[in-house]
């Protein structure tokens, strides 16, 4: 059941070996099926993000890998070793917890030292590794502070150092930035990304924030109701969403529902030629794929429609329009900053930008 060929997008990027293999993993809490048949590989040094709404099962998947919960069925393998049969303290993965879970009775330094002391690392090696870890997260000046004396961002750094000092092959991060305010979060995102590149440890990063997922990840695994919806690189998952859910969850889009008949797509007021079999269809058309056609003459590979501007949201470098194509069909259009717009206009989009998606 591993990495089923039925969904080739779950395969790793070419040329990379799997560090962690999740095979047909499922988890039930009583009658509730929280995870269904998850198969997923993580490559060495990869930054993989588990993205999903709350309740989609992303944290549960992380906890199964860390060992805090047991799977109902399926297997987890790491570097040729069956991981899911080991207790958490024997797994070579470390976790950065959502609210950091720093030990309140220990100083920042002793928090970082915890894993090494537990493993009886000799004292001379210990202090060197702790110093390196603290420097890595720029916290060497706060080594003696108790967690309660540190800010959220500083606690975050200590939590990172405490996990990384153990040199795990895989680091699990459970919404590590969600407790930080917006500015700090942006800064930590950037630092996290460069840190990950520098040390080359594989990151499995859980978030519900699609922008964060896009900005940081090598690949995104989108979870929906406990099942993998799509696994792909950020650019691919944005440009080629497989499903309507993916298209709407990642970025903004216009979902066009209609049908193909005789080589012509009809979605409300929009019509364009497409050489595919007859039947109902859904297309995803990103707002920025639509532009105003000043001269009213589309290219051959473009489709044109006429719509009136209903709302205009100014956003600095760009602006978002809500346009009415008639018969209650509203589309969102993102154009470069333009100036106030009213009335009817011609709009065009490239046919190749209308991506056919599954339900």
């Amino acid at each position, binding site marked *: 059941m591993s990495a089923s060929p039925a969904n080739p997008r779950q395969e790793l990027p070419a040329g990379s070996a799997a560090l962690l293999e999740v095979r047909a993993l499922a988890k039930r809490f009583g009658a509730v099926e929280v995870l269904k048949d998850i198969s997923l590989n993580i490559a060495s040094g990869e930054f993989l993000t588990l993205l999903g709404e709350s309740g989609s099962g992303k944290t549960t998947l992380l906890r199964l890998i*860390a060992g*805090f919960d047991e799977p109902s069925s399926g297997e987890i393998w790491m570097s040729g070793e069956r991981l899911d049969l080991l207790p*958490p*303290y024997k797994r070579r*993965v470390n976790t950065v*917890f959502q609210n950091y*879970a720093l*030990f309140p*009775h220990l100083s920042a330094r002793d928090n970082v030292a915890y894993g090494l002391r537990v493993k009886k690392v000799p004292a001379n090696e210990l202090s060197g590794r702790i110093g390196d870890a603290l420097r890595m997260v720029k916290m060497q000046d706060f080594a003696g502070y108790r967690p309660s004396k540190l800010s959220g961002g500083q606690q975050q750094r200590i939590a990172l150092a405490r996990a990384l000092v*153990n040199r795990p092959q895989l680091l699990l991060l459970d919404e590590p930035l969600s407790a930080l305010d917006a500015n700090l979060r942006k800064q930590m995102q950037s630092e996290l990304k460069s840190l990950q590149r520098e040390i080359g440890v594989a990151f499995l990063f859980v978030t519900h924030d699609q922008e964060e997922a896009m900005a940081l990840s090598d690949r995104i695994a989108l979870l929906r109701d406990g099942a993998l919806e799509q696994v792909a690189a950020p650019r691919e998952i944005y440009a080629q969403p497989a499903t309507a859910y993916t298209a709407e969850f990642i970025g903004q889009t216009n979902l066009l529902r209609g049908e193909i008949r005789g080589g012509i797509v009809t979605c409300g007021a929009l019509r364009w030629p497409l050489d595919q079999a007859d039947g109902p269809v859904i297309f995803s058309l990103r707002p920025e794929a639509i532009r105003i056609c000043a001269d009213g003459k589309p290219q051959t590979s473009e489709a044109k429609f006429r719509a009136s501007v209903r709302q205009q949201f100014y956003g600095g470098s760009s602006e978002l329009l809500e346009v009415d194509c008639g018969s209650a069909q509203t589309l969102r259009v993102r154009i470069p900053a333009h100036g106030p717009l009213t009335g009817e206009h011609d709009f065009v989009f490239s046919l190749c930008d209308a991506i056919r998606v599954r339900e």
Partner: protein
Amino acid sequence: MYSRAYKSLVSIPPIAWVGAFLLLPYALMFVHSLWAVREGVIVHQWNWENYKTLFTNALYAEVLLRTMRIAASVTLCSILLGYPLAYYLAFHAGARKELLYQLVIVPLWVSYLVRGYAWKTILGSDGVLNGFLQYLHLTHEPVGFFLYSPFAVVLMLTHIYTPFVFLPIYAALEHIPRPLLEASEDLGAGSVQTFWRVILPLSMPGLLAGATFAFVLSLGDFLAPLLVGGPSGTMIANVVQSLFGAAFDWPLGAAISVGILVITISLLFLSELLEKRWAFK
């Protein structure tokens, strides 16, 4: 904000209460300890003789030492019983937690005296325990030291004060965030290491509060020695009681009481200090 008049008005009842029922009796006790008894009458003659007796008469030192030993034993036994119980309830009892918690609390609603007499019934020469041992032919005649011994006092006080030790420890354990235990495991610690490195340090304030309860309450107890202690199990409070009663030497009794009070307050102060040292906020 509240007016000055209102603030003074609401502070009258507590001040009056503390004054009438705490400060005044203590003051009277202290004053009595500086008086003397001449020919069966208390005379208001200021002196330190009672305190000198307290420190020089070996009998009082011996009883006080025994009292401390018994209190320390009770504290230790209550912790050894109460901590594992609290640990089990906090981490492993699952759905039975509520029921077990109530079962620990219920004995607190049973009268102290009833529990004391129950121990008499159990430990006496023709008591339940001796009867059982003879039934099993483990002993041929009643074992005497069960009742009327320091052992019996420790047993009874442990029974009575274990819930007092259990409660603060249980509260402390319940307050340990569970992710900390997962973090410890995640960092390679098994359950034994997690206990020593995380659970025990974080439950220290509760443990200390419980130990203080058990020690201080045992220190001042006079009913347990009276019921099951016998002559060898006499504690300092019994001495005080007899001095205020049959011996009619209130000044000496008051001096001993002041001594106990000083010990108790020092202990509470020390425990407060340690609790602050171990409180991690």
